[in-house]
């Protein structure tokens, strides 16, 4: 159960390898990676966050996932600062004995993180800069 909030990029493969290193009690490992997607003319993205609250919010979301599902391990990494299209924004990984718990916990982490972790994306493109609007589906996903 680890949370990291950082400016620098992360090595997805190395993180997943570390999560299962030396273990034989894991049956299923699920990862989600969020990437900067160029929807047309995206030049850059700036990811603002609320230092202090961010780490607390992510740790609380991870603890909630661990309380709901039988997880052997989990990891959340979220970046902040300037990003360009194609870059990794964040990742979650969940490890469990069975695939159902690993998938459900990873989706839960993403649903909660989207609407409860204090990050804000600002996109800069040909038409100027704009703050990304929250998708109604993301705030609604918490109701599931």
């Amino acid at each position: 159960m680890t949370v990291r909030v950082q400016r620098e990029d992360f090595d997805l493969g190395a993180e997943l390898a570390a999560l299962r290193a030396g273990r034989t009690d894991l049956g299923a490992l699920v990862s989600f990676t969020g990437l900067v997607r160029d929807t047309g003319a995206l030049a850059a993205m700036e990811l603002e966050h609320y230092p202090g609250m961010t780490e607390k919010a992510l740790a609380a979301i991870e603890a909630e996932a661990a309380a709901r599902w039988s997880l052997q391990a989990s990891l959340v990494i979220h970046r902040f600062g300037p990003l360009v299209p194609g870059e990794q924004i964040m990742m979650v990984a969940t490890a469990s004995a069975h695939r159902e718990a690993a998938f459900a916990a990873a989706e839960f982490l993403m649903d909660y993180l989207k609407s409860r972790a204090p990050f804000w994306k600002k996109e800069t493109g040909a038409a100027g800069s704009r703050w990304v609007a929250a998708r109604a589906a993301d705030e609604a996903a918490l109701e599931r």
Partner: protein
Amino acid sequence: MTTVRLRYFAWLRERVGEPSETVETAAGTVAELVDELMRREERYALAFADLAAVRVAVDEELADLTAPLAGVREVAFFPPMTGG
């Protein structure tokens, strides 16, 4: 009077024009504090014009506009989060 640190993020920060400030207030709740700010200066009135689009954290925990201010050190205002 309570001394509270206020923090603003994303477009709320841009509209208010600063990332944080410390205020003295007699407001009992976050909603009363917002009213006070909106009456104080145009830029606050603008930032808080659409309260449905404003989210609140009290001492780094998500909260409602109805949250009491007694004993609170920090209140943050920001739009719906868009991480992930």
